[in-house]
């Protein structure tokens, strides 16, 4: 859906990059197996991160090689064995469906046509995910409605709008139980806040042109370009959220995914934020070498 939470590839050890790819492929495989072929297309890095994060230290990995529709000849290495894969797959179906719904409602008819078709294709997958995770589904629906209301009134508090999206993501911590649930809640809350603000900065120019609501534009009273002061303020607040994520993550037990996750937190996310402020996120997304 967004793809902002990704590792800084050149700084990953080869073995960690292989692991990351294996997790990505496993999540894709899980989506296909549990929700059908169309669901494979919603695969992204953010939910791969979630799967790695939810992988418990006591869940053993089963690594194997499997064929996939994209690579039918050469089998791809994959890693299974965590409930986190299923959960991330289910949550990503639910979240994507509601985001599509949003765009169907808000965008002009022709632009929303793609979303309409995607929603139709995802229909069965969504029904299945909804039946499996009714609480998460309800929570996403409620938070997005509240977010929509704030957007309608052109809310000038960046935190207030980001809070609704953050609360939506922190619902992903439910059922972890005990201390872990508190830790996940904090991680997902600030992950959501970080994603929401980074996304708003990334879309600023386009939203200004189209006259759409944008939380950062609203925060700075409709200025269409960020000055030095505004940029610094936003960077400071993003780094602060990231620091809170790092401190919370440090309280979880180490797993086989720790090295990849640390690369994402210490290098990947700061690099993405930096690129978004420079207007160069597209290069990262398309894998243009630096």
């Amino acid at each position: 859906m967004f793809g902002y939470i990704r590792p800084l590839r050149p700084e990953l050890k080869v073995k960690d990059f292989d692991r990351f790819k294996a997790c990505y492929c496993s999540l894709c495989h899980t989506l296909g197996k549990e929700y059908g072929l169309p669901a494979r297309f919603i695969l992204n890095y953010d939910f791969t991160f979630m799967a790695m994060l939810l992988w418990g230290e006591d869940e053993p990995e089963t690594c194997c090689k499997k064929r996939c529709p994209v690579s039918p000849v050469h089998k791809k290495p994959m890693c299974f064995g965590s409930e986190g894969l299923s959960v991330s797959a289910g949550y990503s179906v639910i979240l994507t469906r509601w985001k599509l719904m949003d765009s169907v409602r808000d965008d002009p008819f022709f632009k929303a046509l793609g979303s309409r078709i995607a929603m139709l294709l995802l229909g069965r997958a969504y029904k299945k995910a909804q039946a499996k995770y009714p609480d998460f589904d309800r929570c996403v629906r409620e938070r997005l409605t509240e977010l929509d209301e704030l957007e309608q009134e052109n809310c000038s508090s960046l935190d207030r709008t980001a809070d609704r999206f953050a609360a939506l993501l922190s619902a992903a911590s439910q059922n972890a139980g005990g201390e872990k649930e508190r830790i996940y809640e904090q991680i997902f809350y600030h992950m959501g806040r970080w994603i929401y603000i980074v996304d708003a900065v990334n879309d600023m120019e386009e939203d200004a042109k189209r006259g759409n609501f944008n939380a950062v534009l609203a925060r700075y009273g409709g200025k269409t370009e960020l000055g030095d002061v505004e940029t610094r303020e936003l960077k400071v607040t993003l780094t602060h959220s990231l620091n809170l994520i790092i401190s919370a993550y440090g309280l979880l037990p180490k797993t086989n995914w720790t090295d990849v996750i640390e690369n994402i937190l210490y290098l990947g996310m700061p690099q993405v934020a930096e690129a978004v402020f420079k207007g160069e996120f597209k290069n990262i997304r398309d894998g243009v070498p630096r």
Partner: protein
Amino acid sequence: MNDPYKVLGVSHNASQEEIKKAYRELARKYHPDNYHDNPLADLAQEKMKEINEAYDAITKGTAYTSSSSNSSSYNYGYSNSQGSGYQSGYGGEFAQVRSALNSGNLSYAEQLLNSSSNRNAEWHFLMGSLCYRKGWLDDARSYYQRAVSMDPSNNEYRQALNYMTMSGNAYRPARYEYGSQTDACDICTALMCAQLCCRCR
């Protein structure tokens, strides 16, 4: 009881130096500065206690003792059990707000602040603290800034604002230290080369 070596993440035949290094790294990780006003501060405090006990158990070669009088660990931080609370000795109108914030009762603190008509510097500071606890970092900074501009001589307000402009604090392993990535690698490469040379002979 957890194996103290496992707690510190070292092997059973690790040298004193390795144990000390592992302990220091973990103490840096769970340092109270990284969990200032953090909803998870209690968990970090527990971790710190655990590694202090593990270090004591190993260095003294004894089982766990909770005696702290002659403990050999550094016993970093968390001197008061509350972590870093808001001094509630202030008295006055906002004493109740401070104690609500300390006990984590955010909705009560919010209710008290909203019903107060006295919008002075302290009100703005406490409003900032409330926002901070909710994770509303941008609003928190604005309130702290307002508090400082209304009462520039107050140290508590200035410190809070300062912490926000620093983006808080978090642990970074040495290999992810800002700007030192290449340096660390260079040192490693140099050491590896040196070792190779030694082996050649």
